Protein backbone atom coordinates (compact mmCIF):
# COMPACT_ATOMS: atom_id res chain seq x y z
CA UNK A 1 0.00 0.00 0.00
CA UNK A 2 2.91 2.33 0.79
CA UNK A 3 4.19 1.96 -2.74
CA UNK A 4 0.82 3.00 -4.09
CA UNK A 5 0.85 6.15 -1.96
CA UNK A 6 4.33 7.06 -3.15
CA UNK A 7 3.47 6.51 -6.79
CA UNK A 8 0.31 8.55 -6.27
CA UNK A 9 2.43 11.47 -5.10
CA UNK A 10 4.90 11.10 -7.94
CA UNK A 11 2.38 10.75 -10.69
CA UNK A 12 -0.10 13.29 -9.51
CA UNK A 13 -0.09 16.16 -11.90
CA UNK A 14 -2.64 18.70 -12.95
CA UNK A 15 -4.99 17.33 -15.54
CA UNK A 16 -7.15 19.38 -17.76
CA UNK A 17 -10.13 17.05 -17.79
CA UNK A 18 -10.46 15.80 -14.29
CA UNK A 19 -13.89 14.34 -14.83
CA UNK A 20 -13.02 12.48 -18.04
CA UNK A 21 -12.42 9.28 -16.09
CA UNK A 22 -16.08 9.15 -15.13
CA UNK A 23 -16.97 8.87 -18.79
CA UNK A 24 -15.18 5.51 -18.80
CA UNK A 25 -16.20 4.25 -15.38
CA UNK A 26 -19.74 5.63 -15.37
CA UNK A 27 -21.50 3.09 -17.62
CA UNK A 28 -20.13 0.20 -15.59
CA UNK A 29 -21.17 1.80 -12.32
CA UNK A 30 -24.72 2.41 -13.51
CA UNK A 31 -25.23 -1.25 -14.43
CA UNK A 32 -23.40 -2.23 -11.27
CA UNK A 33 -25.84 -0.19 -9.20
CA UNK A 34 -28.91 -1.63 -10.91
CA UNK A 35 -27.85 -5.27 -11.14
CA UNK A 36 -25.78 -5.70 -8.01
CA UNK A 37 -26.21 -3.01 -5.38
CA UNK A 38 -29.97 -2.63 -5.69
CA UNK A 39 -30.77 -6.36 -5.37
CA UNK A 40 -28.57 -6.70 -2.30
CA UNK A 41 -30.17 -3.66 -0.66
CA UNK A 42 -33.66 -4.89 -1.49
CA UNK A 43 -32.89 -8.35 -0.12
CA UNK A 44 -31.57 -6.85 3.12
CA UNK A 45 -34.74 -4.78 3.35
CA UNK A 46 -36.91 -7.83 2.72
CA UNK A 47 -35.04 -9.87 5.29
CA UNK A 48 -36.12 -7.45 8.01
CA UNK A 49 -39.83 -8.00 7.39
CA UNK A 50 -42.25 -10.86 7.74
CA UNK A 51 -45.54 -11.64 6.08
CA UNK A 52 -48.07 -12.14 8.84
CA UNK A 53 -51.61 -13.38 8.77
CA UNK A 54 -52.71 -10.45 10.86
CA UNK A 55 -51.29 -7.06 10.02
CA UNK A 56 -49.72 -8.01 6.67
CA UNK A 57 -46.09 -7.10 6.12
CA UNK A 58 -44.53 -6.25 9.46
CA UNK A 59 -41.07 -5.09 10.42
CA UNK A 60 -39.46 -7.77 12.56
CA UNK A 61 -35.85 -6.61 12.79
CA UNK A 62 -33.42 -9.50 12.86
CA UNK A 63 -36.05 -12.11 13.66
CA UNK A 64 -35.58 -13.87 10.33
CA UNK A 65 -31.87 -14.23 11.07
CA UNK A 66 -32.65 -15.55 14.53
CA UNK A 67 -35.01 -18.02 12.94
CA UNK A 68 -32.20 -19.25 10.68
CA UNK A 69 -29.92 -19.74 13.68
CA UNK A 70 -32.44 -22.07 15.27
CA UNK A 71 -33.44 -23.78 12.03
CA UNK A 72 -31.99 -27.32 11.97
CA UNK A 73 -32.43 -27.51 8.19
CA UNK A 74 -30.24 -24.44 7.73
CA UNK A 75 -27.59 -25.78 10.10
CA UNK A 76 -27.57 -29.15 8.41
CA UNK A 77 -27.08 -27.55 4.98
CA UNK A 78 -24.33 -25.28 6.33
CA UNK A 79 -22.55 -28.22 7.96
CA UNK A 80 -22.74 -30.10 4.69
CA UNK A 81 -21.09 -27.37 2.61
CA UNK A 82 -18.43 -26.83 5.29
CA UNK A 83 -17.61 -30.52 5.19
CA UNK A 84 -17.51 -30.27 1.42
CA UNK A 85 -15.14 -27.31 1.71
CA UNK A 86 -12.86 -29.15 4.13
CA UNK A 87 -12.50 -32.25 1.96
CA UNK A 88 -13.11 -31.41 -1.69
CA UNK A 89 -11.12 -28.18 -1.87
CA UNK A 90 -7.82 -29.59 -0.54
CA UNK A 91 -8.11 -32.64 -2.81
CA UNK A 92 -8.78 -30.48 -5.86
CA UNK A 93 -6.07 -27.94 -5.10
CA UNK A 94 -3.42 -30.59 -4.43
CA UNK A 95 -4.29 -32.31 -7.71
CA UNK A 96 -4.11 -28.99 -9.54
CA UNK A 97 -0.82 -28.14 -7.84
CA UNK A 98 0.81 -31.43 -8.77
CA UNK A 99 -0.38 -31.11 -12.36
CA UNK A 100 0.94 -27.54 -12.60
CA UNK A 101 4.33 -28.60 -11.21
CA UNK A 102 4.46 -31.44 -13.71
CA UNK A 103 3.64 -29.07 -16.58
CA UNK A 104 6.34 -26.66 -15.43
CA UNK A 105 8.97 -29.34 -14.86
CA UNK A 106 10.15 -29.47 -18.51
CA UNK A 107 10.20 -33.24 -18.10
CA UNK A 108 6.88 -33.76 -19.80
CA UNK A 109 6.54 -34.50 -23.48
CA UNK A 110 3.57 -32.81 -25.19
CA UNK A 111 2.93 -30.62 -22.18
CA UNK A 112 0.58 -28.42 -24.23
CA UNK A 113 -1.72 -31.38 -24.93
CA UNK A 114 -1.96 -32.18 -21.23
CA UNK A 115 -2.49 -28.54 -20.32
CA UNK A 116 -5.35 -28.05 -22.78
CA UNK A 117 -7.07 -31.36 -22.14
CA UNK A 118 -7.05 -31.00 -18.38
CA UNK A 119 -8.30 -27.41 -18.65
CA UNK A 120 -11.08 -28.39 -21.06
CA UNK A 121 -13.70 -29.45 -18.47
CA UNK A 122 -13.78 -25.84 -17.25
CA UNK A 123 -15.64 -24.98 -20.46
CA UNK A 124 -18.30 -27.65 -19.90
CA UNK A 125 -21.50 -26.21 -18.40
CA UNK A 126 -22.18 -27.41 -14.86
CA UNK A 127 -25.52 -28.71 -16.14
CA UNK A 128 -23.89 -30.95 -18.73
CA UNK A 129 -21.13 -32.02 -16.33
CA UNK A 130 -23.69 -33.01 -13.72
CA UNK A 131 -25.87 -34.82 -16.26
CA UNK A 132 -22.91 -36.79 -17.66
CA UNK A 133 -21.56 -37.82 -14.31
CA UNK A 134 -25.07 -38.38 -13.00
CA UNK A 135 -25.85 -40.79 -15.81
CA UNK A 136 -22.55 -42.58 -15.25
CA UNK A 137 -23.32 -42.83 -11.54
CA UNK A 138 -26.93 -43.82 -12.08
CA UNK A 139 -28.40 -47.25 -11.68
CA UNK A 140 -30.29 -47.35 -14.98
CA UNK A 141 -27.49 -47.20 -17.50
CA UNK A 142 -24.75 -46.38 -15.05
CA UNK A 143 -21.17 -47.43 -15.36
CA UNK A 144 -20.72 -47.99 -11.66
CA UNK A 145 -23.44 -50.61 -11.46
CA UNK A 146 -22.01 -52.23 -14.58
CA UNK A 147 -18.52 -52.29 -13.12
CA UNK A 148 -19.87 -53.76 -9.90
CA UNK A 149 -21.36 -56.73 -11.65
CA UNK A 150 -18.41 -57.07 -13.99
CA UNK A 151 -15.83 -57.14 -11.22
CA UNK A 152 -18.14 -59.01 -8.86
CA UNK A 153 -17.50 -56.53 -6.09
CA UNK A 154 -20.16 -54.51 -4.36
CA UNK A 155 -19.30 -50.95 -5.30
CA UNK A 156 -21.37 -48.46 -3.33
CA UNK A 157 -24.19 -46.63 -5.08
CA UNK A 158 -22.77 -43.14 -5.82
CA UNK A 159 -26.24 -41.63 -5.63
CA UNK A 160 -27.12 -43.07 -2.23
CA UNK A 161 -27.45 -40.56 0.56
CA UNK A 162 -24.18 -41.59 2.21
CA UNK A 163 -22.16 -41.24 -1.00
CA UNK A 164 -23.84 -38.45 -2.92
CA UNK A 165 -21.70 -35.69 -1.40
CA UNK A 166 -18.55 -37.53 -2.50
CA UNK A 167 -20.06 -37.89 -5.98
CA UNK A 168 -20.76 -34.17 -6.14
CA UNK A 169 -17.22 -33.52 -4.94
CA UNK A 170 -15.94 -35.57 -7.85
CA UNK A 171 -17.98 -33.52 -10.33
CA UNK A 172 -16.75 -30.22 -8.92
CA UNK A 173 -13.15 -31.48 -8.85
CA UNK A 174 -13.49 -32.58 -12.46
CA UNK A 175 -14.82 -29.17 -13.47
CA UNK A 176 -12.30 -26.95 -11.71
CA UNK A 177 -9.03 -28.85 -11.16
CA UNK A 178 -7.81 -27.80 -14.62
CA UNK A 179 -8.78 -24.18 -14.05
CA UNK A 180 -6.80 -24.05 -10.83
CA UNK A 181 -3.95 -25.88 -12.48
CA UNK A 182 -3.76 -23.10 -15.05
CA UNK A 183 -3.69 -20.39 -12.38
CA UNK A 184 -0.82 -22.20 -10.65
CA UNK A 185 0.97 -22.82 -13.92
CA UNK A 186 0.80 -19.14 -14.87
CA UNK A 187 2.26 -18.20 -11.51
CA UNK A 188 5.11 -20.68 -11.99
CA UNK A 189 5.87 -19.26 -15.42
CA UNK A 190 6.32 -15.84 -13.85
CA UNK A 191 9.26 -17.03 -11.72
CA UNK A 192 12.40 -15.35 -13.07
CA UNK A 193 14.78 -17.78 -14.73
CA UNK A 194 17.79 -16.45 -12.82
CA UNK A 195 16.42 -18.02 -9.66
CA UNK A 196 16.66 -21.47 -11.21
CA UNK A 197 20.13 -20.78 -12.50
CA UNK A 198 21.27 -19.66 -9.08
CA UNK A 199 19.70 -22.72 -7.50
CA UNK A 200 21.38 -25.09 -9.93
CA UNK A 201 24.74 -23.45 -9.27
CA UNK A 202 24.14 -24.07 -5.60
CA UNK A 203 23.48 -27.70 -6.46
CA UNK A 204 19.83 -27.76 -5.50
CA UNK A 205 17.90 -30.91 -6.32
CA UNK A 206 14.66 -30.85 -8.30
CA UNK A 207 12.69 -31.38 -5.10
CA UNK A 208 14.68 -28.64 -3.39
CA UNK A 209 13.73 -26.23 -6.15
CA UNK A 210 10.08 -27.16 -5.74
CA UNK A 211 10.28 -26.70 -1.99
CA UNK A 212 12.29 -23.48 -1.85
CA UNK A 213 11.46 -21.65 -5.06
CA UNK A 214 8.27 -22.92 -6.66
CA UNK A 215 6.02 -23.36 -3.65
CA UNK A 216 6.80 -19.89 -2.22
CA UNK A 217 6.21 -18.40 -5.68
CA UNK A 218 2.81 -20.08 -5.73
CA UNK A 219 1.58 -18.57 -2.49
CA UNK A 220 -0.43 -15.66 -3.97
CA UNK A 221 -1.98 -18.00 -6.54
CA UNK A 222 -2.89 -20.46 -3.79
CA UNK A 223 -4.60 -17.70 -1.84
CA UNK A 224 -6.73 -16.70 -4.82
CA UNK A 225 -7.59 -20.30 -5.70
CA UNK A 226 -8.49 -20.78 -2.04
CA UNK A 227 -10.77 -17.75 -2.04
CA UNK A 228 -12.58 -18.87 -5.19
CA UNK A 229 -12.93 -22.39 -3.82
CA UNK A 230 -14.40 -21.15 -0.55
CA UNK A 231 -16.95 -19.16 -2.52
CA UNK A 232 -17.73 -22.09 -4.82
CA UNK A 233 -18.21 -24.53 -1.94
CA UNK A 234 -20.37 -22.37 0.28
CA UNK A 235 -22.52 -21.31 -2.66
CA UNK A 236 -22.88 -24.84 -4.03
CA UNK A 237 -26.08 -25.11 -6.04
CA UNK A 238 -25.89 -26.26 -9.67
CA UNK A 239 -24.54 -29.77 -9.24
CA UNK A 240 -26.81 -30.93 -6.40
CA UNK A 241 -29.81 -29.21 -7.96
CA UNK A 242 -29.36 -31.14 -11.21
CA UNK A 243 -28.50 -34.43 -9.54
CA UNK A 244 -31.68 -34.10 -7.51
CA UNK A 245 -33.69 -35.45 -10.45
CA UNK A 246 -31.56 -38.59 -10.46
CA UNK A 247 -31.27 -38.95 -6.69
CA UNK A 248 -34.43 -37.46 -5.19
CA UNK A 249 -34.11 -39.51 -2.02
CA UNK A 250 -30.53 -38.50 -1.29
CA UNK A 251 -30.77 -34.78 -2.11
CA UNK A 252 -33.46 -32.88 -0.30
CA UNK A 253 -34.74 -29.37 -0.82
CA UNK A 254 -32.31 -27.98 1.77
CA UNK A 255 -29.24 -29.94 0.71
CA UNK A 256 -27.14 -26.76 0.53
CA UNK A 257 -27.93 -23.27 1.88
CA UNK A 258 -28.38 -21.95 -1.65
CA UNK A 259 -30.81 -24.73 -2.54
CA UNK A 260 -32.68 -23.97 0.66
CA UNK A 261 -32.96 -20.27 -0.20
CA UNK A 262 -34.07 -21.16 -3.72
CA UNK A 263 -36.73 -23.60 -2.58
CA UNK A 264 -37.98 -21.25 0.12
CA UNK A 265 -38.52 -18.63 -2.58
CA UNK A 266 -40.21 -20.92 -5.04
CA UNK A 267 -41.98 -23.75 -3.33
CA UNK A 268 -42.63 -21.92 -0.09
CA UNK A 269 -43.12 -18.32 -1.24
CA UNK A 270 -41.28 -17.39 1.94
CA UNK A 271 -39.46 -14.50 0.37
CA UNK A 272 -38.46 -12.76 3.58
CA UNK A 273 -36.88 -15.82 5.15
CA UNK A 274 -35.27 -16.75 1.84
CA UNK A 275 -33.72 -13.29 1.59
CA UNK A 276 -32.36 -13.62 5.12
CA UNK A 277 -30.70 -16.96 4.27
CA UNK A 278 -29.22 -15.58 1.03
CA UNK A 279 -27.84 -12.48 2.73
CA UNK A 280 -26.62 -14.45 5.73
CA UNK A 281 -24.78 -16.93 3.51
CA UNK A 282 -23.32 -14.06 1.48
CA UNK A 283 -21.90 -12.58 4.67
CA UNK A 284 -20.54 -15.92 5.90
CA UNK A 285 -18.94 -16.51 2.49
CA UNK A 286 -17.28 -13.11 2.40
CA UNK A 287 -15.99 -13.45 5.94
CA UNK A 288 -14.47 -16.87 5.20
CA UNK A 289 -13.02 -15.68 1.89
CA UNK A 290 -11.50 -12.71 3.66
CA UNK A 291 -10.09 -14.96 6.38
CA UNK A 292 -8.36 -17.11 3.76
CA UNK A 293 -6.86 -14.01 2.21
CA UNK A 294 -5.71 -12.65 5.54
CA UNK A 295 -4.19 -15.98 6.52
CA UNK A 296 -2.31 -16.18 3.23
CA UNK A 297 -1.02 -12.65 3.53
CA UNK A 298 0.07 -12.98 7.13
CA UNK A 299 2.07 -16.10 6.46
CA UNK A 300 3.72 -14.41 3.53
CA UNK A 301 4.90 -11.52 5.67
Amino acid at each position, binding site marked *: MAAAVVSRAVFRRPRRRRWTGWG*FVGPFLIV*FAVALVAPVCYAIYLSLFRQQLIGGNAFVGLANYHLALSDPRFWESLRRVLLFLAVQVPVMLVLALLAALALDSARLRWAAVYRLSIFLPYAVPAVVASLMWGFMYGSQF*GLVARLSSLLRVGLPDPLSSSWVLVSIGNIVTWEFAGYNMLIFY*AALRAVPGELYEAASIDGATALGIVRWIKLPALRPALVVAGVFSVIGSLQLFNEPNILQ*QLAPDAIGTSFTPNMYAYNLSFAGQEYNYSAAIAIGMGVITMVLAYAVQLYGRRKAA
Partner: protein
Amino acid sequence: MTAATQARAAAGAKPGRKPPRLGAGRRGRGGRGGRGGTGARERHSVVLSALMTIMLCYALLPLFWLVVNSAKTQRALFTTFGLWFGGKFALWSNIHQVLTYDNGIFVRWLANTVVYVVVGAGGATFLATLAGYGMAKYDFPGKRAVFAIVLGAVAIPGTALAVPTFLLFSRLHLTNTPWSVILPSLVSPLGLYLIWVYAADAVPTELLEAARIDGAGEFRTFFVISMRLLTPGVVTVLLFTVVATWNNYFLPLIMLSNPHWYPLTVGLNDWNAQSSTAGGQAIYNLVITGSLLTVIPIMIAFLVMQRYWRSGLAAGSVKQ
Protein backbone atom coordinates in the same frame (compact mmCIF):
# COMPACT_ATOMS: atom_id res chain seq x y z
CA MET B 1 -1.77 10.65 -34.68
CA THR B 2 1.67 11.66 -35.78
CA ALA B 3 4.82 9.69 -36.25
CA ALA B 4 6.01 11.05 -32.93
CA THR B 5 3.10 9.34 -31.23
CA GLN B 6 3.95 6.06 -32.85
CA ALA B 7 7.60 6.44 -31.93
CA ARG B 8 6.75 7.02 -28.32
CA ALA B 9 4.61 3.93 -28.40
CA ALA B 10 7.50 1.94 -29.72
CA ALA B 11 9.94 3.34 -27.20
CA GLY B 12 7.67 2.29 -24.38
CA ALA B 13 6.96 4.55 -21.51
CA LYS B 14 6.78 4.46 -17.81
CA PRO B 15 3.66 2.65 -16.75
CA GLY B 16 0.99 4.74 -15.12
CA ARG B 17 -0.27 4.20 -11.65
CA LYS B 18 -1.00 0.62 -11.06
CA PRO B 19 -3.56 -0.83 -8.75
CA PRO B 20 -1.87 -2.16 -5.65
CA ARG B 21 -0.82 -5.76 -5.86
CA LEU B 22 0.23 -8.37 -3.43
CA GLY B 23 2.82 -10.26 -5.31
CA ALA B 24 5.72 -9.52 -7.56
CA GLY B 25 5.19 -7.99 -10.95
CA ARG B 26 4.69 -10.04 -14.06
CA ARG B 27 7.97 -10.85 -15.65
CA GLY B 28 8.29 -12.80 -18.80
CA ARG B 29 10.96 -15.40 -18.69
CA GLY B 30 13.11 -15.61 -21.74
CA GLY B 31 13.61 -19.09 -23.09
CA ARG B 32 12.65 -22.24 -21.34
CA GLY B 33 15.85 -24.06 -22.06
CA GLY B 34 17.83 -25.52 -19.20
CA ARG B 35 15.30 -24.73 -16.56
CA GLY B 36 13.37 -26.69 -14.08
CA GLY B 37 16.28 -27.98 -12.25
CA THR B 38 19.57 -29.66 -11.95
CA GLY B 39 21.02 -30.20 -15.34
CA ALA B 40 21.01 -28.54 -18.69
CA ARG B 41 19.72 -31.70 -20.37
CA GLU B 42 16.65 -33.01 -18.64
CA ARG B 43 15.24 -36.38 -19.63
CA HIS B 44 11.54 -36.81 -20.15
CA SER B 45 10.11 -38.58 -17.17
CA VAL B 46 8.04 -41.68 -17.83
CA VAL B 47 6.51 -41.68 -14.37
CA LEU B 48 5.42 -38.10 -14.74
CA SER B 49 3.93 -38.79 -18.15
CA ALA B 50 2.04 -41.78 -16.78
CA LEU B 51 0.59 -39.81 -13.89
CA MET B 52 -0.43 -36.93 -16.12
CA THR B 53 -1.97 -39.37 -18.59
CA ILE B 54 -4.18 -40.69 -15.79
CA MET B 55 -5.26 -37.14 -15.08
CA LEU B 56 -5.87 -36.52 -18.79
CA CYS B 57 -8.05 -39.63 -18.99
CA TYR B 58 -10.01 -38.44 -15.98
CA ALA B 59 -10.59 -35.09 -17.69
CA LEU B 60 -11.61 -36.60 -21.01
CA LEU B 61 -13.52 -39.71 -19.88
CA PRO B 62 -16.93 -38.03 -19.40
CA LEU B 63 -16.60 -36.26 -22.73
CA PHE B 64 -15.77 -39.55 -24.42
CA TRP B 65 -18.80 -41.09 -22.70
CA LEU B 66 -20.92 -38.22 -24.04
CA VAL B 67 -19.79 -38.75 -27.63
CA VAL B 68 -20.26 -42.52 -27.46
CA ASN B 69 -23.72 -42.32 -25.96
CA SER B 70 -24.90 -39.57 -28.29
CA ALA B 71 -24.68 -42.23 -30.98
CA LYS B 72 -27.04 -44.63 -29.24
CA THR B 73 -30.76 -45.15 -29.38
CA GLN B 74 -32.63 -44.87 -26.13
CA ARG B 75 -32.94 -48.66 -25.99
CA ALA B 76 -29.22 -49.16 -26.53
CA LEU B 77 -28.47 -46.69 -23.72
CA PHE B 78 -29.93 -49.18 -21.28
CA THR B 79 -28.70 -52.38 -22.84
CA THR B 80 -25.15 -51.74 -24.05
CA PHE B 81 -21.89 -51.01 -22.24
CA GLY B 82 -21.59 -47.30 -21.56
CA LEU B 83 -18.00 -46.76 -22.64
CA TRP B 84 -18.24 -48.19 -26.10
CA PHE B 85 -20.49 -47.88 -29.12
CA GLY B 86 -23.33 -50.34 -29.29
CA GLY B 87 -26.57 -50.95 -31.09
CA LYS B 88 -27.56 -48.98 -34.12
CA PHE B 89 -25.44 -45.90 -34.94
CA ALA B 90 -28.05 -43.27 -34.18
CA LEU B 91 -26.08 -40.03 -33.92
CA TRP B 92 -27.67 -38.39 -36.96
CA SER B 93 -31.19 -39.43 -36.08
CA ASN B 94 -30.61 -38.26 -32.48
CA ILE B 95 -29.44 -34.87 -33.69
CA HIS B 96 -32.43 -34.66 -36.00
CA GLN B 97 -34.75 -35.51 -33.12
CA VAL B 98 -33.09 -32.98 -30.80
CA LEU B 99 -33.53 -30.22 -33.34
CA THR B 100 -37.17 -31.05 -34.14
CA TYR B 101 -38.55 -32.27 -30.80
CA ASP B 102 -41.41 -30.15 -29.44
CA ASN B 103 -41.52 -27.92 -32.54
CA GLY B 104 -37.79 -27.30 -32.52
CA ILE B 105 -37.66 -25.81 -29.02
CA PHE B 106 -33.96 -26.74 -28.80
CA VAL B 107 -33.13 -24.41 -31.68
CA ARG B 108 -35.01 -21.68 -29.87
CA TRP B 109 -32.96 -22.35 -26.71
CA LEU B 110 -29.77 -22.24 -28.76
CA ALA B 111 -30.78 -18.86 -30.24
CA ASN B 112 -31.63 -17.55 -26.76
CA THR B 113 -28.26 -18.69 -25.46
CA VAL B 114 -26.45 -16.98 -28.34
CA VAL B 115 -28.32 -13.73 -27.63
CA TYR B 116 -27.56 -13.94 -23.91
CA VAL B 117 -23.89 -14.60 -24.64
CA VAL B 118 -23.46 -11.93 -27.32
CA VAL B 119 -25.29 -9.21 -25.41
CA GLY B 120 -24.41 -10.35 -21.89
CA ALA B 121 -20.79 -11.40 -22.26
CA GLY B 122 -20.05 -8.88 -25.01
CA GLY B 123 -21.61 -6.08 -22.99
CA ALA B 124 -19.89 -7.18 -19.78
CA THR B 125 -16.52 -7.25 -21.51
CA PHE B 126 -17.08 -3.87 -23.09
CA LEU B 127 -18.17 -2.21 -19.84
CA ALA B 128 -15.33 -3.82 -17.91
CA THR B 129 -12.76 -2.75 -20.51
CA LEU B 130 -13.99 0.82 -20.56
CA ALA B 131 -14.06 1.06 -16.78
CA GLY B 132 -10.81 -0.83 -16.17
CA TYR B 133 -9.04 1.44 -18.62
CA GLY B 134 -10.56 4.50 -16.96
CA MET B 135 -9.34 3.32 -13.59
CA ALA B 136 -5.82 2.67 -14.90
CA LYS B 137 -5.34 5.83 -16.89
CA TYR B 138 -7.37 8.62 -15.32
CA ASP B 139 -7.46 10.42 -12.06
CA PHE B 140 -10.90 11.60 -11.07
CA PRO B 141 -12.83 12.61 -7.99
CA GLY B 142 -14.25 9.58 -6.20
CA LYS B 143 -11.74 7.15 -7.66
CA ARG B 144 -10.87 5.72 -4.27
CA ALA B 145 -14.51 4.96 -3.59
CA VAL B 146 -14.84 3.20 -6.95
CA PHE B 147 -11.72 1.21 -6.16
CA ALA B 148 -13.11 0.07 -2.82
CA ILE B 149 -16.47 -0.86 -4.34
CA VAL B 150 -14.95 -2.89 -7.15
CA LEU B 151 -12.54 -4.75 -4.90
CA GLY B 152 -15.37 -5.56 -2.52
CA ALA B 153 -17.59 -6.75 -5.35
CA VAL B 154 -15.01 -9.18 -6.74
CA ALA B 155 -15.56 -11.28 -3.63
CA ILE B 156 -19.36 -11.34 -3.94
CA PRO B 157 -20.25 -14.69 -5.45
CA GLY B 158 -22.65 -14.58 -8.37
CA THR B 159 -24.78 -17.36 -6.97
CA ALA B 160 -25.27 -15.43 -3.75
CA LEU B 161 -26.86 -12.69 -5.84
CA ALA B 162 -29.30 -14.90 -7.73
CA VAL B 163 -32.02 -15.04 -5.09
CA PRO B 164 -31.82 -11.32 -4.14
CA THR B 165 -31.84 -10.32 -7.80
CA PHE B 166 -34.85 -12.52 -8.40
CA LEU B 167 -36.69 -10.95 -5.47
CA LEU B 168 -36.07 -7.44 -6.76
CA PHE B 169 -36.81 -8.24 -10.39
CA SER B 170 -40.04 -10.02 -9.57
CA ARG B 171 -41.10 -6.94 -7.64
CA LEU B 172 -40.32 -4.84 -10.72
CA HIS B 173 -42.08 -7.37 -13.00
CA LEU B 174 -38.85 -7.94 -14.90
CA THR B 175 -38.76 -11.70 -14.43
CA ASN B 176 -39.56 -13.93 -17.37
CA THR B 177 -37.99 -11.49 -19.82
CA PRO B 178 -34.61 -11.77 -21.56
CA TRP B 179 -33.46 -8.70 -19.64
CA SER B 180 -33.72 -10.55 -16.35
CA VAL B 181 -30.92 -12.82 -17.58
CA ILE B 182 -28.90 -10.27 -19.54
CA LEU B 183 -28.82 -7.39 -17.06
CA PRO B 184 -27.13 -9.24 -14.17
CA SER B 185 -24.57 -10.82 -16.51
CA LEU B 186 -23.46 -7.37 -17.69
CA VAL B 187 -21.55 -6.82 -14.46
CA SER B 188 -18.07 -8.31 -14.21
CA PRO B 189 -16.03 -6.74 -11.41
CA LEU B 190 -13.36 -9.37 -11.96
CA GLY B 191 -13.19 -8.41 -15.63
CA LEU B 192 -12.79 -4.77 -14.70
CA TYR B 193 -10.04 -5.69 -12.31
CA LEU B 194 -8.16 -7.77 -14.91
CA ILE B 195 -8.31 -4.99 -17.51
CA TRP B 196 -7.19 -2.47 -14.93
CA VAL B 197 -4.10 -4.49 -14.07
CA TYR B 198 -3.44 -5.15 -17.71
CA ALA B 199 -3.97 -1.58 -18.97
CA ALA B 200 -1.62 -0.16 -16.35
CA ASP B 201 1.29 -1.89 -18.11
CA ALA B 202 0.08 -2.31 -21.66
CA VAL B 203 -0.93 1.26 -22.45
CA PRO B 204 1.91 3.75 -21.88
CA THR B 205 0.64 6.97 -20.31
CA GLU B 206 3.05 9.02 -22.43
CA LEU B 207 1.47 7.61 -25.53
CA LEU B 208 -1.87 8.98 -24.37
CA GLU B 209 -0.31 12.35 -23.68
CA ALA B 210 1.20 12.41 -27.14
CA ALA B 211 -2.22 11.69 -28.59
CA ARG B 212 -3.65 14.53 -26.49
CA ILE B 213 -1.03 16.92 -27.80
CA ASP B 214 -2.00 15.81 -31.28
CA GLY B 215 -5.52 16.85 -30.43
CA ALA B 216 -7.20 13.44 -30.40
CA GLY B 217 -10.24 13.20 -28.15
CA GLU B 218 -10.07 10.87 -25.15
CA PHE B 219 -12.61 8.38 -26.47
CA ARG B 220 -11.16 8.42 -29.95
CA THR B 221 -7.75 7.68 -28.45
CA PHE B 222 -9.30 4.82 -26.54
CA PHE B 223 -10.96 3.20 -29.53
CA VAL B 224 -8.16 3.84 -32.04
CA ILE B 225 -5.01 3.32 -30.00
CA SER B 226 -5.63 1.81 -26.61
CA MET B 227 -8.08 -0.90 -27.66
CA ARG B 228 -5.44 -2.38 -29.93
CA LEU B 229 -2.92 -2.56 -27.11
CA LEU B 230 -5.54 -4.02 -24.78
CA THR B 231 -6.63 -6.83 -27.10
CA PRO B 232 -4.96 -9.76 -25.28
CA GLY B 233 -6.47 -8.61 -22.00
CA VAL B 234 -9.87 -8.12 -23.59
CA VAL B 235 -9.82 -11.61 -25.12
CA THR B 236 -9.00 -13.09 -21.74
CA VAL B 237 -11.91 -11.32 -20.10
CA LEU B 238 -14.15 -12.28 -23.02
CA LEU B 239 -13.19 -15.93 -22.56
CA PHE B 240 -14.24 -15.81 -18.91
CA THR B 241 -17.49 -13.97 -19.54
CA VAL B 242 -18.48 -16.10 -22.55
CA VAL B 243 -17.91 -19.32 -20.61
CA ALA B 244 -19.81 -17.87 -17.64
CA THR B 245 -22.85 -16.78 -19.69
CA TRP B 246 -23.00 -19.85 -21.90
CA ASN B 247 -22.90 -22.03 -18.80
CA ASN B 248 -25.17 -19.83 -16.70
CA TYR B 249 -27.79 -21.93 -14.97
CA PHE B 250 -28.92 -20.68 -11.56
CA LEU B 251 -29.89 -17.19 -12.69
CA PRO B 252 -32.02 -18.16 -15.73
CA LEU B 253 -33.50 -21.05 -13.76
CA ILE B 254 -34.72 -18.69 -11.10
CA MET B 255 -35.76 -15.87 -13.45
CA LEU B 256 -37.52 -17.66 -16.28
CA SER B 257 -40.66 -19.76 -16.21
CA ASN B 258 -41.55 -19.54 -19.89
CA PRO B 259 -39.62 -22.22 -21.82
CA HIS B 260 -39.46 -19.90 -24.80
CA TRP B 261 -36.88 -17.77 -23.03
CA TYR B 262 -34.79 -20.66 -21.63
CA PRO B 263 -31.11 -20.93 -22.46
CA LEU B 264 -29.77 -24.39 -23.34
CA THR B 265 -28.70 -25.24 -19.80
CA VAL B 266 -32.14 -24.78 -18.27
CA GLY B 267 -33.81 -26.45 -21.25
CA LEU B 268 -31.62 -29.55 -20.94
CA ASN B 269 -32.41 -29.82 -17.27
CA ASP B 270 -36.09 -29.57 -18.16
CA TRP B 271 -35.78 -32.49 -20.56
CA ASN B 272 -33.95 -34.48 -17.93
CA ALA B 273 -36.66 -33.71 -15.38
CA GLN B 274 -39.29 -34.83 -17.84
CA SER B 275 -37.43 -38.10 -18.35
CA SER B 276 -37.06 -38.74 -14.65
CA THR B 277 -40.64 -37.97 -13.74
CA ALA B 278 -42.96 -40.90 -13.47
CA GLY B 279 -45.42 -40.67 -16.35
CA GLY B 280 -43.23 -38.27 -18.31
CA GLN B 281 -41.95 -39.30 -21.71
CA ALA B 282 -38.37 -40.49 -21.29
CA ILE B 283 -36.07 -38.78 -23.79
CA TYR B 284 -32.65 -39.65 -22.37
CA ASN B 285 -31.17 -39.92 -25.84
CA LEU B 286 -32.23 -36.33 -26.49
CA VAL B 287 -30.80 -35.15 -23.15
CA ILE B 288 -27.46 -36.73 -24.00
CA THR B 289 -27.26 -35.63 -27.62
CA GLY B 290 -28.54 -32.19 -26.64
CA SER B 291 -25.74 -32.01 -24.07
CA LEU B 292 -23.22 -32.81 -26.77
CA LEU B 293 -24.63 -30.07 -29.01
CA THR B 294 -24.47 -27.66 -26.07
CA VAL B 295 -20.84 -28.45 -25.35
CA ILE B 296 -19.48 -28.33 -28.90
CA PRO B 297 -19.87 -24.57 -29.65
CA ILE B 298 -18.44 -23.45 -26.32
CA MET B 299 -15.50 -25.81 -26.70
CA ILE B 300 -14.73 -24.50 -30.17
CA ALA B 301 -14.93 -20.92 -28.91
CA PHE B 302 -12.79 -21.90 -25.96
CA LEU B 303 -10.09 -23.58 -28.04
CA VAL B 304 -9.98 -20.68 -30.50
CA MET B 305 -9.80 -18.00 -27.81
CA GLN B 306 -7.29 -19.73 -25.55
CA ARG B 307 -4.66 -19.25 -28.26
CA TYR B 308 -4.89 -15.51 -27.81
CA TRP B 309 -5.42 -15.22 -24.17
CA ARG B 310 -2.75 -14.30 -21.69
CA SER B 311 -2.46 -16.92 -19.03
CA GLY B 312 -0.24 -14.38 -17.28
CA LEU B 313 -3.32 -12.22 -16.96
CA ALA B 314 -5.24 -15.04 -15.36
CA ALA B 315 -2.45 -14.95 -12.85
CA GLY B 316 -2.80 -11.18 -12.77
CA SER B 317 -6.10 -11.78 -11.03
CA VAL B 318 -3.96 -13.60 -8.59
CA LYS B 319 -1.58 -10.79 -7.94
CA GLN B 320 -4.00 -8.30 -6.64
